[in-house]
Every structure is written in structure tokens, then in C-alpha cells.
């Protein structure tokens, strides 16, 4: 039994190492001197670790600007998504209002429709509204988060009706009930949703690529893709760019993984 235990664990360790190797290699190369990675065999560790790539990234390439854009867009997307979806999810779960249930069923059915279907008309719509090439344009898709409404509703279903009824008898308004009673109960699902929206909007690529034309407004993925397509042959600096783009979300996930995974499972049973 002991042998079996160790062989399974060893296999898992090997698979895990292969899985994280590209990420470790990305970090390692980002500290290499210029040209060091373009060798055969590929070096695994920098001979003389240097911060030169990062210095150049933030100096010549102005990555600080893109980092700022990414943080701004993701933070606003998260705040707006929470503001729009939490009340809606709660209302669909607990308030009786004409048409509430059929509307919710239609929303769930609409989850099958991928957002890319409407991208061209959405672009024209935002152009008419004067929102093309603006932060606001990049934020728009995050307002229409059906998945978030679904997630909050599922969680709200477990709140006992008697609790809300008692508050009503005590004379609390519906808005007060939401703020004072429901919101504190919802804390875990709010963290899950916030994390989910923040990571998704940070990693989002196709929509910001379409809607942001001005280089000053580029988010990190758009800027990185633009540079990589111009055939920048400097591995080291591209890896440093990849580190700056992906490390913030990776760290955020590692810190709050419990919340992320619980949301993932709630979302996967929707079908």
C-alpha cells in the first residue's frame, strides 16, 4: 500500500510539474539577459538574473499605462457587475412580481447564446452612442451578466422566507431588507462573483481588441498581442510582458481559490 501511495503521488507531482512548467519557464526567462533564451539547448535558469527587461518594459514600452488601463477596466467592470446583478439575482429568487419567473427562464435559455454572435451590431450600437474607443465601451458587456444573476439567485434560494417576512412585519422596506439582511448573508457569493468578473474582464481579449483603437486605452492583453504580432524577437522582454499580464490574476486566484472553485461548480450544474 505504501508503494502504491507513493507512486500515485509521484505521478501527480510529475503531471503538476509539467502543467506549471510553462509558467515557471516564463518567469525564469523574464529575468534573463537579452538574447540568452535564444540558444540551444534552451537554458532553464538565467545565468545572471537581471531586472533589465522589466525596466525596459516600464520605460521604453510604457507598460505602466496598460497596467493602469487593465486595473481600471477590471475594477469598474467588477463594481458595475455587482451593482447590476446582486439585486436582480435576489429579486428573481425571493420577490414575487408578475413575469419574474418566465423572464428568468428566458435568461437561463439565453446562456446558450455566445456573446460573440452580437459583437458586430454591438460595435455599431456603441458607435452610435459615441462609446467606441472609450473605457465605457470596454465595460458594456460586463453589465449584461446573466451568469452572475444566475449565481446570486441560486445562493438566495437558500435564505428562509420567514426571515424576510419577519423583517417586513417589522416595517422594513424591500431595499432595507436587501441591504441589512440579504447582503451580509451573500458575502461568500459576492466574493465569488467579484473574483470571477475581475479575472474574466482582466483576461478578456476579443472585445477590448475591437472596441479600443487608441493605444493609450489598450489593456494589457491587447497591448501584448499587438507587440507579439509585430514579431518582436526578444523572448526575454516578451516573457516579462507576459509575467506582468498574468501574474496579478494568478496571485489573486491563489489567494481566493476556494471562492473561485465554488462558483465554478455552481455554474457548471446550470445545464
Amino acid at each position, binding site marked *: 500500500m505504501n508503494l502504491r501511495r507513493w507512486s500515485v503521488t509521484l505521478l501527480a507531482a510529475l*503531471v503538476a510539474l509539467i502543467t506549471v512548467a510553462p509558467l515557471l519557464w516564463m518567469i525564469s526567462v523574464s529575468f534573463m539577459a537579452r538574447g540568452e533564451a535564444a540558444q540551444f*539547448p534552451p537554458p532553464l535558469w538565467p545565468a545572471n538574473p537581471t531586472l533589465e527587461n522589466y525596466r525596459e518594459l516600464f520605460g521604453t514600452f510604457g507598460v505602466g499605462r496598460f497596467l493602469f488601463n487593465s486595473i481600471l477596466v477590471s475594477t469598474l467592470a467588477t463594481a458595475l457587475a455587482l451593482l447590476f446583478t446582486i439585486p436582480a439575482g435576489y429579486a428573481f429568487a425571493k420577490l414575487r412580481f408578475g413575469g419574474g419567473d418566465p423572464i428568468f427562464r428566458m435568461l437561463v435559455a439565453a446562456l446558450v447564446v*455566445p456573446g460573440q454572435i452580437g459583437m458586430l451590431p454591438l460595435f455599431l450600437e456603441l458607435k452610435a452612442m459615441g462609446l467606441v474607443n472609450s473605457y465605457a465601451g470596454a465595460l458594456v458587456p460586463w453589465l449584461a451578466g446573466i451568469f452572475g444573476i444566475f449565481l446570486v439567485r441560486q445562493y438566495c434560494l437558500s435564505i428562509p422566507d420567514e426571515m424576510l417576512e419577519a423583517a417586513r412585519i417589522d416595517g422594513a422596506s424591500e431595499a432595507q431588507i436587501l441591504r441589512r439582511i440579504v447582503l451580509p448573508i451573500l458575502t461568500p457569493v459576492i466574493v465569488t462573483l467579484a473574483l470571477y468578473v475581475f479575472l474574466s474582464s482582466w*483576461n478578456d481579449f476579443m472585445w477590448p481588441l475591437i472596441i479600443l483603437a487608441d493605444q493609450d486605452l489598450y489593456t494589457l492583453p*491587447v497591448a501584448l498581442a499587438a507587440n*507579439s504580432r509585430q514579431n518582436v524577437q526578444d523572448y526575454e522582454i516578451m516573457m516579462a510582458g*507576459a509575467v506582468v499580464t498574468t501574474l496579478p490574476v*494568478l496571485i489573486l486566484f491563489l489567494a481566493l481559490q476556494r471562492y473561485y472553485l465554488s462558483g465554478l461548480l455552481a455554474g457548471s450544474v446550470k445545464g
Partner: protein
Amino acid sequence: MTAAGRTSEARAGWAMTSPALVAIVLFFVLPAVASLFLSFTDFDIYALADIGNLRFVGFQNYERLTQNPLFWKAMANTLLFVAVGTPFIVALSLFAAMLVNSRWLKWRPVWRVALFAPYVTTLVATAVVWRYLLHTRYGLLNYLLSFFGVPPIDWLGSPTASLPAILIFVGWKTFGYNMIIFLAALQTVPRELDEAARIDGAGWFARLRHVTLPAIAPTVLLVSVLTVAGMFQLFAEPYVMTQGGPAQSTVTILYFMYEEGFKWWNLGSGAAVAFLLFLCILAVTLVQMRLAKRSGAI
């Protein structure tokens, strides 16, 4: 409850849902429906400048697409990604889930997080990383393969290797997500069942086929549907890694739509592509649902 109470509850219900509903109608439903209408017009760069140039052209965009070899190439590539990628990624995910679910495994949470990590990374950033991992001369992958006597493969430069190359990357990026879903399903399979089969002398593969797979069949279906939908939506991977090349071997349907719409500004034609893509995803989902119903999985 009093009538007044019910009215105030209904009013609150609408007040709390209407901001989200307005946003969903305005930025999701309306564009999706408009996509269908747009596909029957000749909306192009001239109409973009002056809407007066817009004409209704019936099915002309669709007809022209059927005569466009690049459209068929994109369609064929996407179907190839679906046909090859789905079984590959589902099998990879199930293997990882069974490994992490093994009762002999120590430090389970560590391995679970490590295997899931690629899923939360930024797609564009890891695509850049993988472009170098797959480099013909300096790439780590070819270096590893050289130990097994495999000559260097031009992963992203050869029309036959580019699709496997992108699939390896997509598989690496997404298997962790499916693994978590599989893990939740595997935990509901009773250990005793597996144990009884083992005592009866069933081997690892026989137990997988006759005990584990039947028990998690609905989850296999769910993961397959999600993976197929994901395969239809490949865009950033070819955009960053191959720009659709070599020899257009990695032009996916979404990449084609992007170029039609935002490179050539043929928005009418691009909308037609979007609508066809939607029909494909819908068809696959419905077929898989039907299969599931017949086999009694759902």
C-alpha cells in the same frame, strides 16, 4: 400578506431587476437579434460612413460565403478542432480528475491547484509563452522530444503541425476547468462499487468502463458540450500564435468573422458568419441533449 404588501413587493422586484434587464436587452439581446438583420444587408465601410448607402440584399451574403474558399477552410478547420480537440481534452481532463481523486494521493489540494492554475492565466500571455515553447530551434518542447529521438518539429510553421500545436496549448489551458467538474462527479461514485469490482478481478480499464463512466455519464456529456462550445469560439489562440497561418490552416470561424467584420469592414457578411456560428453551436448542443435523453443520462 396584505394587498399593499404584495404591490410593494412587486414594485421592488421590478426596481431591482430592471437595471440588469435593460442592460441585457440593450447590450446582449438587441445585438444578437440585430446580427440576423445585419446579415441580410450589405453593411460595409461605405454604410459605416453614411447609413444611406445601406441596402437590403436578402441571402446574398450567405450565397457569397458559400462561394468563398476561405469560409469553407475556416469551417473545416473549426470542425477539425471540434472533432479532434473534444475527445482529446475530455480524456485529458478525466485522466487528471481520476488521478487527483485517487484515494492513495497525498497532498491532494496542492496538485489540484497546480493543475487548475493554467485556466485562470491570461490567454494572450500564455499564448505568447507557448509560441516560444513551440519554437522550432529554441523551444523547450522540441528539446524534450529530442531525447526521444524526435527530429525538430516546425510546430507553428507547418500546416499539418499547427492544429495539434494549438490543441496542445488549448488542452493545457482548459483541462483544469473540466477536471474540477469531473472531480465533483467522481466524488459521488460510491467507493464500494469500485472496490467490489476490484475484488471480482476487474482491471483498471474494465472498472473505468463499467463502473466509473456509467456513473458519471451526465458529467461527461456536460463537459463535452462545454468543450465543443469552447472549440467553436477559438480566436485569440490563432490571432496571437499563428495569425491564421500557415497556409490558413488555423483560420477558425471566429477569426474569419473578426477579419470580415473589423479588418475588411464587411459587417453584413461578418454578421452572416456570426449567425451561422450560432446555428452550429445550437445544433451541436441540441444533438448532444437528444443523445443524453435517449441514453437516459439526463
